[in-house]
């Protein structure tokens, strides 16, 4: 008999099953301001913004096109009120000689006031504040729901949004500098990418307005009066807009995808496709991986062999490196390579011990090892595990009773035989995308790779990787670097020219724990595809600290383009002092100050928002003593980075993640050496704050 049969004929089931509750929860979670996304991929009408926001942490992906324009937008709700946007757009025939334009732009918007029963939501936005300036504009906008279904928006626009019926800005009364708007694109490509502080909210302003009507939960009609006259497009011969009125309809499917069809400017038909996802909501909370073996009664536990412990831990993705059972304490050192959250690995290791070590053992000391460095030690009482396994407060009680400390130096006498020397050789495939070449925004290379390592003793690793490209479109790029700096990165594409196998890295790495809370690394050899040399790093990182401080010094010499063993003439001393800070609530900051590959001095600021389930969205920029005009297109190095753990998508535990750094352009100023296995990244997941953040997985 199936489950339905069991219930069906014997009782009437009230509608309280999963679906009913789920829908109720959704209805409560959705704010009144259900988002419709504009052609710019942000909450808005059609071509105009509104004052609404996405839910905190949400990512909106939008592709929208009409006429000669196509815009692909990634919007991220950084905080409940602050939104950041990266956009990659295409305008057919915009450039001289009818060439197409590929353009990158960044926006920021901030919701100044939330909507209340009597007052509209109010937001301010900067559009394309750091790109080429094609979409350069600012706005102040208000939106109010007049009925639950009808929302009215009105706003004022500057720059591009002041195209129609514009009038002089009241700000000009305050200061003359607000009266006219400097021509942001005037310096040509050499000035693009500079932050146009000087132009913000300057020049004339113009009103825009619109209304949306949610006819059903899924179907929304939108109409707007646009203040954009597409003057730049018209001046490039792309025609004149016929009307300021735009109309559209959007339909949201059950799977969350929204499609829209529009009539724009009395001239064009437009379509849009968008999807909003919430990284905090993994499809499988806690994953679908194997359940742990529950604790057996202590009276039934028989002391198992070392081999049995090794097998038990190995089944949980851990390698046992050291074992010592003395008196009432069992000490183990493990390398965890399956569970992304150390707390989960810890819970599994604790249960393996509880089911396999002598009943007289009361204390478990579990040390996590990374690259041969003992990083953190967690001490647990066996009786606590037995008491709390199914307790309603199992998580916080276990955490409260656990002791998390910096790992003590390891006793070599406790090493499990056969773990060292360790080695591995494997082959696989690789896929390298190359984004945003102005001639072809998506190029890639794919082929076979051979990876191997040999670890003669803990902390010493000889490793390498060779790649054989089989298919590449990256090598079709004909762009030649016009950089007037040493070409430390701008000719990166030349490293893809050779069709023969190439060495991506070949290094000897040594990892050490010189003293409490301090980590050290030295890497020698072919450090990365473009550079070889030597890199030395030290990191101070107390186990329960929000702050970590490090320093790195490198001597690097540029490698030959063919990926062989040879070097070119260029060499440089480069290095940084770095500070890492965990602000809490998932925000992480990093400041690196020092000398970059081209010999330029400066600093990089990075801010990431990281969800506990591992999804990461961040942005960075680097300012150095290279003048903007010498830097070239983009003016300074900047970009965003996005990373999704594979387990977020599949539900299966994995430490792998898929991610991409998106830079508008890769130039030579502010370029860093890409050394593998920097210390903060290799230790953070094992330190106290990260352990505690995902502690809910201890008993999973």
């Amino acid at each position: 008999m199936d489950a339905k049969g069991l219930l069906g004929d014997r009782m009437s089931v009230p509608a309280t099953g999963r679906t009913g509750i789920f829908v109720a929860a959704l209805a409560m979670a959705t704010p009144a301001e259900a988002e419709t996304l504009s052609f710019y991929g942000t909450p808005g009408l059609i071509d105009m913004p509104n004052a609404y926001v996405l839910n905190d942490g949400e990512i909106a992906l939008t592709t929208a096109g009409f006429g000669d324009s196509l815009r692909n937008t990634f919007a991220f709700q950084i905080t409940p009120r602050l939104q950041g946007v990266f956009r990659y757009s295409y305008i057919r025939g915009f450039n001289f000689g009818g060439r197409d334009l590929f353009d990158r732009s960044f926006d920021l918007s901030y919701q100044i006031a939330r909507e209340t029963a009597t007052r509209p939501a109010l937001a301010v936005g900067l559009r394309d504040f750091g790109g080429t300036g094609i979409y350069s504009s600012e706005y102040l906008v208000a939106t109010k729901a007049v009925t639950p279904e009808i929302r009215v928006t009105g706003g004022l626009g500057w720059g591009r949004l002041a195209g129609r019926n514009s009038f002089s800005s009241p700000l000009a009364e305050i200061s003359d500098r607000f009266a006219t708007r400097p021509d942001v694109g005037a310096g040509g490509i050499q000035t693009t990418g500079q932050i146009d502080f000087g132009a913000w909210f300057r020049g004339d302003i113009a009103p825009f307005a619109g209304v949306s009507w949610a006819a059903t939960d899924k179907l929304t009609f939108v109409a707007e009066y646009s203040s954009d006259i597409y003057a730049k497009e018209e001046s490039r011969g792309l025609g004149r807009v016929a009307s300021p009125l735009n109309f559209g309809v959007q339909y949201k499917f059950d799977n969350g995808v929204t499609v829209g069809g529009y009539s724009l400017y009395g001239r064009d038909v437009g379509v849009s496709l968008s999807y909003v996802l919430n990284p905090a909501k993994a499809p499988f909370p806690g994953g679908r991986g194997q359940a742990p073996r529950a604790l057996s009664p202590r009276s039934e536990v028989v002391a198992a062999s070392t081999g049995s412990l090794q097998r038990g831990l190995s089944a949980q993705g851990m390698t046992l490196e050291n074992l010592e059972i003395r008196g009432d304490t069992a000490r183990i050192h493990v390398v965890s390579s399956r569970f992304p959250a150390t707390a989960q690995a810890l819970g599994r290791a604790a249960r393996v011990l509880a089911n396999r070590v002598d009943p007289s053992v009361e204390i478990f000391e579990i040390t996590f090892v990374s690259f041969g460095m003992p990083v953190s030690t967690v001490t647990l009482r066996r009786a606590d595990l037995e008491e709390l396994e199914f307790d309603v407060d199992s998580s916080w009680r276990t955490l409260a009773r656990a002791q998390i400390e910096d790992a003590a130096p390891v006793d070599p006498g406790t090493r499990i035989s056969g773990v060292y020397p360790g080695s591995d050789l494997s082959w696989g495939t690789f896929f390298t995308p190359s984004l945003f070449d102005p001639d072809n925004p998506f190029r890639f290379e794919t082929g076979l790779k051979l990876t191997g390592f040999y670890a003669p003793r803990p902390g010493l690793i000889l490793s390498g990787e060779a790649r054989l490209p089989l298919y590449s479109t990256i090598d079709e790029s004909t762009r030649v670097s016009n950089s007037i700096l040493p070409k430390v990165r701008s000719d990166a594409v030349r490293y893809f020219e050779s069709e023969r196998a190439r060495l991506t890295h070949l290094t000897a790495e040594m990892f050490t724990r010189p003293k409490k809370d301090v980590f050290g690394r030295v890497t020698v050899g072919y450090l990365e595809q473009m550079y070889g040399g030597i890199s030395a790093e030290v990191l101070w990182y107390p186990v329960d600290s929000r702050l970590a401080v490090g320093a790195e010094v490198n001597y690097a010499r540029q490698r030959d383009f063919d990926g062989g063993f040879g070097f070119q003439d260029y060499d440089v001393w480069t290095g940084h002092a770095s500070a890492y800070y965990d602000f809490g609530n998932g925000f992480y900051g990093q400041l690196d100050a020092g000398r970059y590959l081209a010999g330029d001095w400066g600093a990089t600021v990075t801010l990431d928002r990281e969800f506990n389930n591992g999804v990461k969205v961040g942005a960075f920029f680097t300012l150095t003593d290279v003048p903007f005009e010498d830097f070239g297109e983009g003016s300074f190095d900047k970009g965003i980075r996005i990373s999704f753990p594979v387990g977020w998508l599949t539900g299966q535990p994995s430490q792998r993640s898929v991610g991409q750094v998106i830079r508008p352009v890769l130039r030579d100023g502010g370029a860093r050496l890409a050394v593998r296995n920097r210390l903060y990244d290799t230790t953070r997941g094992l330190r106290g704050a990260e352990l505690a953040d995902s502690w809910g997985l201890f008993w999973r």
Partner: protein
Amino acid sequence: MRRIFSLIPAMLVVGCGALQLPGGQPNVDGTVVALAQQGAPRLQVGILSLGASTVVVRQTVRENFETYASIDGASITMQDGMMIATRGLGGDMLGSDISESLATVSSQKPGRVTRFHTFLDPENRAERRAYICDIAIRGPRDVPFGETQVATQLIAEDCASQDQTFLNLYWIDSSGKIVQSRQWAGDFAGVLTFRIVP
């Protein structure tokens, strides 16, 4: 190439895929199969939202916690026939305090009780929830047990928190054992049904 082919549409596709349950390969646990062959106690479990059912085998008994494992790697822990924990169902019930419910249901008398469950949320945090439950006697019911019928009392436990409601049902035989039940395992896993396999 005229079309724009960038990261964004590619991510859109990935995003949509995330909404469906990817079909995982069942990872058969041989030790569970062996336990079943050795005659370990079994429960038939139905997952109402999927319309699916499976048999789980008792793997561990510690104090009055009985943990049943499925061959594909999930487990459910019962305390005297009431579910107190799940592992591997998604949004798992990490732990529970069902002492009041258990006492009142066992005594087969109506009453109002509080029960507590802690669930794993999508950001790996343990979220503790409290529910007020009304326990009512629905009366005698015969339920099939193998080839025969067993006389039971049907007891209903109607629970609510601020934003969640669920109904648990227990069929209790003359010895006071829960031989069949329907119990809520949280928002994600939904309602599960249990029946002792003879």
